């Protein structure tokens, strides 16, 4: 039994429970025991965290993380990914199934979960594949995946191009109550493209990926969703057209949720600069108008969650011709700082920002945590909103360094991360206990 912990006089922001103010938070037995306006007495043997001037938040939940294990342990492992997560304030991550042995069976799910138990840092929730081998041909065994511990199914990294199969996936998954998470990309429209199609791709002479490659698939899947009464989660929304369709679908009461990545709401296609492969991702960084639309969607609730799409790659995957560069960037250790850029710029209020990192994702996938009411798991992230720091990719806990944000100045930083009442990150150090 761990000692009680008292977080004293921090600004507690707990959007689900409508809390935003100075509170004491008492943790006992890995759960939140009490949240109080008035100062609480220090229980015997308790650890005290002086949190005045800091934010005491529900632990962040990332719905979209690539841990690369099994199969590409040189890029990341469950352990190194969990270190990066807690260093970034995340107490729970959803692990994508597109590993080199695809998570399309209970066996792989169990392997990931056993690695996560061994790492013993944050909660890892595997997502299983929609189709066997992510081939888009036959449904994987959703029932087995869910009973082994998967919280969603997705072929992330690839769209399900076959509309009939997608329709059945949505129908079939209704039996298990898990969301079908989709990477929306019509491959016939995106074929050969290396970045967003627009003035920048024209200037650089790179084949463009039109926004319609995403929007057309969002439209298709919303039509299928309505018909199947299923549950759809749209990953890494990148453009204005998608936002408009999702907003309208929500208004009509469809069970659709959506996420946006920090990079899509911070950068536009101009970040490609002189063929910088660190700005290469799928979906690509879009035009400034799309970035505007995403920011509005974060504010008005069209987007439910900020998710990083943490995608570790080696140096050699990026030090190549732009067209050959592999898609994706790491995101766990920069997510808070980038989100706070919007807050510091007055584009997003702090409470909504916290909601997008906590209750929003928890609710979208039906995960525990994401709030601090008594009885909730004591997954807590302490943030210093004023600390200024500079992103240094060489100091990432992630095994990979592929980020376009190296050297970027940030204001606001994670100072402590607690998972189930245990301190797993503090003072810049991950606290292992294995």
């Amino acid at each position, binding site marked *: 039994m761990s000692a009680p912990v008292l977080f004293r006089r921090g600004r507690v922001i707990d959007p689900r429970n409508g809390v935003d103010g100075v509170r004491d938070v008492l943790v006992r037995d890995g759960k939140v025991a009490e949240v109080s306006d008035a100062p609480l007495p220090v229980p015997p043997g308790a650890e005290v965290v002086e949190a005045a001037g800091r934010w005491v938040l529900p632990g962040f939940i990332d719905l979209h993380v690539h841990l690369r294990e099994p199969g590409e342990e040189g890029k990341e492992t469950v352990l190194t990914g969990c270190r990066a997560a807690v260093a970034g304030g995340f107490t729970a991550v959803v692990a994508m199934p597109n590993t080199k042995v695809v998570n399309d069976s209970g066996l792989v799910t169990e392997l990931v979960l056993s690695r996560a138990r061994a790492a013993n840092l944050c909660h890892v929730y595997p997502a299983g594949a929609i189709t066997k081998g992510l081939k888009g041909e036959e449904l994987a065994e959703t029932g087995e995946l869910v009973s082994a511990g998967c919280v969603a199914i997705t072929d992330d990294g690839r769209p399900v191009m076959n509309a009939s199969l997608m329709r059945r996936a949505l129908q079939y998954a209704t039996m298990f109550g898990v969301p079908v998470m989709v990477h929306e990309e019509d491959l016939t429209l995106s074929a050969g493209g290396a970045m967003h199609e627009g003035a920048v*791709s024209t200037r*650089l*002479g*790179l084949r463009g990926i039109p926004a319609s490659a995403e929007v057309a698939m969002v439209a298709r899947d919303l039509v299928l969703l309505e018909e199947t009464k299923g549950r759809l989660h749209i990953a890494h929304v990148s453009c204005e057209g998608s936002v408009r369709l999702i907003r309208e679908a929500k208004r009509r009461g469809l069970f659709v949720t959506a996420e946006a990545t920090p990079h899509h709401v911070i950068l536009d296609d101009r970040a490609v600069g002189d*063929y910088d492969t660190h700005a290469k991702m799928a979906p690509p960084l879009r035009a400034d108008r799309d970035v505007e639309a995403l920011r509005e969607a974060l504010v008005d609730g069209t987007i439910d969650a900020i998710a990083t799409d943490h995608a570790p790659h080696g140096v050699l995957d990026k*030090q*190549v*011709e732009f067209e050959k560069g592999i898609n994706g960037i790491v995101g766990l250790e920069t997510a808070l700082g980038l989100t706070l850029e919007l807050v510091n710029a007055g584009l997003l209020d702090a409470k909504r920002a916290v909601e997008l990192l906590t209750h929003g994702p928890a609710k979208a996938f039906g995960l525990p945590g994401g709030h601090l009411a008594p009885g909730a798991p004591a997954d807590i992230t302490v943030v210093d909103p004023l600390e200024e720091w500079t992103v240094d990719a060489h100091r990432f806990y992630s095994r990979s360094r592929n980020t376009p944000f190296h050297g970027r100045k940030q204001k606001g930083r994670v100072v402590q991360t607690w998972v189930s009442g245990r301190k797993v990150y503090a003072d810049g150090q991950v606290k292992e206990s294995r």
Partner: protein
Amino acid sequence: MRHLLGIEGWRRDELEAVLDRARSHLPGGPDTTHLLRGKVVANLFFEDSTRTRTSFHMAARGLGAGVLDWSPSGSSTSKGETLLDTARNIEATGPVAIVMRHRSSGAPHLVAKHVRCVVINAGDGTHEHPSQALLDAFTLRQRWGSLDGRTVLIVGDILHSRVARSNLWCLKALGARVIVCGPPTLIPPGLEAMGAEVTHNLDAVLPQADAVMCLRLQLERMGEAFLPSTREYSRLFGLTTAREERMKAGALVMHPGPINRGLELAPAVADGARSVILEQVSNGVAVRRAILEVCTS
């Protein structure tokens, strides 16, 4: 020393300095074989182009340089050597410049970030082909003296054309008005932001042009359904003799070559009085000498 990765970003006076130098490199000019004597220029051609490669080769020799000709056939790229590995190996032989042709847009930019010698882009993917644009501009200056106030019409597959992009930057910088014309499927978005006027109606703009630059139609792309047929392309965008008659008096016809005769250009137009196509080719060496000279000095 300075890389030539593209025309974009070069100022008018800098471009004019290259074009002015090129004049002294024309046949019959002063001896220039001392300029790069004892130096090596590496020709790094990942994509075949006999014309551009030979032109750069002759230019380097004319400046007294040795030429290292490198092409990937049978070499290590097929064994997984990366572009940077190759470039660093070439760099280790100590060239004063790497002249590079590559099928990926931006490949020379990547190499330039990692080597210490000058990198000259001899065509990268569908991005830029700066030496072609300079020799086109040189040819026009020979005829006109100045490009100020002139209208150049670029016709054809703008989307896939590195020549179009480089010429757009170059012609605009030198004071010309540029109109681009082609079917909407071959016109990328955002050209207006680069200073071009865009049209799909060749006949409407043809009488305004002081020069018409026909681009090569890349027949290998026909399978991608950019166009219904070459026949229809020729009917809508081909420079036929009938169209030629409606051009301004004295207006010029250009083509970067190689020509699909009868498709972009009627043979009689390609070989006719307006055509400066052969002058473009012969000016190529002088302009590339000037590029090598200016970039390595």
